[in-house]
């Protein structure tokens, strides 16, 4: 049996599945039940300053995007940080940590961007004996209008500054949670590192409007006929998150900086993908909000079974294994020539490959008498669209042309030597081979 024990920044947890700071982690009742259900760690719902807590709207907080059969693909929310008094949250955190010493407990914090505010709250958080803190520089809605959340996360200098304050006034691990609502994720990640942060976690939610009511023309979720952008999360944002995690993992300036992966983790496979791209653990919210805490059981069993199958004894055996394979476009092998192949026995003759190729790609699929679909190699650029739209798995595959054969599209002999754009004759910037 694979060992799922996780050690992230020295914080031990029985598994790498943490609940992200969000509605599911707002109070003691939920967090105790989450641990009992098997979650390895919890990042407590974001704490704010001492004093009257924030208030939430009293209408809907969530909007949704559905796939088939009302499957939740994405949720957005306009909920703010915890709306319960700081003291109440801290007392509950201390009690929970005392009862679950082997589970990770992280405090998420969002206070104004001045040193005093951080200096005030950090010792009180430390008293709870939680394992570390996460700086919420990510929420794109509500709090950002007050100069917090993503308003900080969008300014690398602020990130660096606040991270430095936190390292100064707090002696346990500091994680900076990043917003994806920026142009290049590497800048805030570098700032976090420069400020001394121990890790980054990403992504927070994506600024979004999920839908518009076409009767009253209000964005959803609608509060008395008006809507505000919310933070989008769930399976729909996973590809965005994977890329951002990978960018940080392979950036020379942040390479080795621990990452907690967040963004649409719904199954063990999603988790394994984040971890392969360099995340030391993952945080989950939408899947739990959709299916309940029990969802973690599938994640644990799935990851364990996959690790056994692949022979990985511990998480560190595969964390980061995909990072070396993430590269820039210019380094992709232009001599890798493939052609689509349609398995006629598997084909159900829907013609979607044909419509896609004929209407929107390269007119490389023939439709013969009797709805027989065949690839015209002389036109096929191997774009893969036919594979993507085919409803039958493995019916269309991309097959590599062997070295020595002639690509009928280009008339060129296929080579098995690696060659990329940097040396291609069409590239005006091509690096000339040494004379």
């Amino acid at each position, binding site marked *: 049996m694979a060992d799922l024990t996780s050690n992230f920044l020295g914080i031990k947890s029985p598994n790498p599945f943490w609940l992200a700071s969000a509605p599911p982690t707002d109070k003691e009742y939920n967090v105790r039940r989450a641990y009992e259900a098997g979650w390895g760690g919890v990042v407590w719902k974001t704490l704010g300053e001492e004093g009257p807590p924030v208030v939430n709207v009293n209408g809907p907080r969530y909007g949704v995007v559905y796939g*088939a059969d009302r499957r939740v693909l994405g949720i957005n929310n306009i909920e703010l940080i915890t709306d319960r008094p700081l003291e109440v949250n801290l007392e509950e955190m201390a009690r929970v940590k005392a009862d679950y010493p082997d589970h990770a407990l992280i405090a998420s914090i969002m206070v104004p961007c001045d040193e005093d505010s951080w200096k005030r709250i950090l010792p009180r958080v430390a008293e709870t004996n939680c394992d570390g803190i996460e700086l919420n520089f990510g929420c794109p809605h509500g709090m950002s209008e007050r100069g917090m959340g993503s308003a900080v996360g969008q300014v690398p200098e602020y990130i660096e500054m606040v991270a430095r304050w936190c390292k100064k006034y707090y002696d346990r691990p500091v994680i900076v949670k990043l917003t994806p609502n920026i142009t290049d994720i590497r800048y805030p990640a570098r700032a976090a590192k420069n400020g001394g942060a121990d890790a980054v976690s990403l992504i927070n939610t994506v600024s979004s409007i999920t839908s518009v009511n076409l009767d009253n023309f209000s964005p959803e979720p609608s509060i008395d006929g008006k809507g505000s952008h919310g933070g989008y999360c769930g399976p729909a944002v996973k590809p965005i998150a994977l890329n951002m995690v990978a960018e940080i993992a392979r950036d020379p300036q942040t390479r080795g900086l621990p990452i907690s992966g967040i963004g649409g983790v719904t199954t063990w496979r999603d988790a394994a993908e984040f971890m392969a791209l360099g995340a030391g653990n993952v945080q989950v919210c939408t899947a739990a909000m959709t299916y309940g805490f029990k969802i973690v059981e599938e994640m644990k069993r799935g990851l364990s079974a996959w690790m056994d199958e692949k022979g990985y004894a511990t998480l560190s055996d595969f964390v980061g294994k995909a990072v070396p394979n993430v590269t820039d476009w210019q380094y992709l092998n232009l001599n890798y020539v493939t052609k689509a192949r349609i398995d006629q026995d598997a084909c*159900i*003759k829907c013609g979607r490959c044909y419509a896609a190729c004929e209407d929107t790609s390269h007119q490389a699929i023939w439709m013969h008498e009797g*709805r027989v679909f065949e690839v015209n190699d002389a036109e096929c650029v191997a774009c893969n669209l036919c594979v993507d739209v085919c409803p039958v798995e493995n019916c269309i595959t991309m097959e590599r042309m062997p070295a020595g054969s002639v690509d009928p599209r280009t008339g060129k002999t296929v080579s098995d030597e690696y060659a990329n754009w940097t040396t291609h004759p069409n590239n005006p910037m091509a690096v000339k081979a040494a004379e």
Partner: protein
Amino acid sequence: MTSPFTPGIASGRLDAETLARNFSDLHPAYDPHEAAVAADRCYFCHDAPCITACPTDIDIPLFIRQIASGMPEAAARTILEQNILGGMCARVCPTETLCEEACVREAAEGKPVEIGRLQRYATDSLMARQGHPFTRAPETGRHVAVVGAGPAGLACAHRLAMKGHTVTIYEARPKAGGLNEYGIAAYKSTDDFAAREVDWLLGIGGITIEYGKALGRDITLDGLRGTHDAVFLGIGLGAVNALEAEGADKDGVGDAVDFIAILRQAEDKAALPVGRNVVVIGGGMTAIDAAVQSKLLGAENVTVAYRRGADRMGASQFERDLATSKGVRILTDVVPKAVHGNGAAREIELEYTAEGPDGLKGTGETLRLPADQVLRAIGQVLDPVDGLTLDGRKIAVTGAGRTFLPGVWAGGDCTPGEDLTVVAVAEGRDAAEDIHATLTGMVS
């Protein structure tokens, strides 16, 4: 109190609650979520095989996509533009041998998109909320006679009326709808749907129906030709093939089509008499409809006796499975030889058959089944109409239903082709287009 075991032919074999359950909707309507899930299964195929398989060429992927995107009434319009009886066709089409057989998901997983039920969802949605969705073109001053208010006649009349022509339908029976009203198993057209659909269809305006007017009895083809600009014959098949077996005149021997018609018109099914032992002769949809409904009325034993193998039966696999699931026994490779009994049928004698070089022959071996009621479902034939050229036993037509008499078109079961509601609708519609083109001088 009678029961399934009461001898002879008797009514009231089952209680009212059981009868109501037995004759409830065969394919219950989808609720909106079920429809959305079912619609989502459609792959939106290129040049979709289901469209090719539909006699009325409904753009099925398009209407299903309209359902999926939350516009069932717009989906209905897509359907009804091609097939004004799309509501009935959704209920009675043998989709398992038409669109759903062609569905690529049938090939892929043996479970096609449920096109028929989706079509019903769309058409029901429209009919529940909207009036008639189409508008008439300005009056042309042309007057067309349509004989028969069945699917072919109604489809033809509707399309002509839409084009601005005035239509009079001459119908022999007291109600319109043809086999939609008088044929077809009751569980396929519940809540008086056939009549409601006719009323809704007539909402186009410009159509008058004269009831009790039978061709050859009350009206003549020559007469109609003299008083109208064109004539369309959608007269169906009015006669039934005779049963060539000794004792076929005994009490208890009747036509399945009559049995079905009476059942469809009955206010109270408990009042309908049915045999304890029913034998239906034939292998088509009518035979299955009669047999299943006999069973649902409370007959103890119901047998369908067909002269060839199961693979030659006109009824689809789905229909045969439906029958056997209701407890009907399907006996193949037998022909009726005699009906025995003293005045009334008590037993039927069947002879086994074998396919030989000279066709189907009796083997000499016989069997006897108890039979209080014998229902003939061995095919219907055209009541001859003077002056028309025949093609086999049906009215010969060329192109879009043109008979060999100028100004006379025909369609539906009275012309060659499959005897299906959806085929009749297509023929009526296409004839109307041809009549319109002829009357407006676009073709001659």
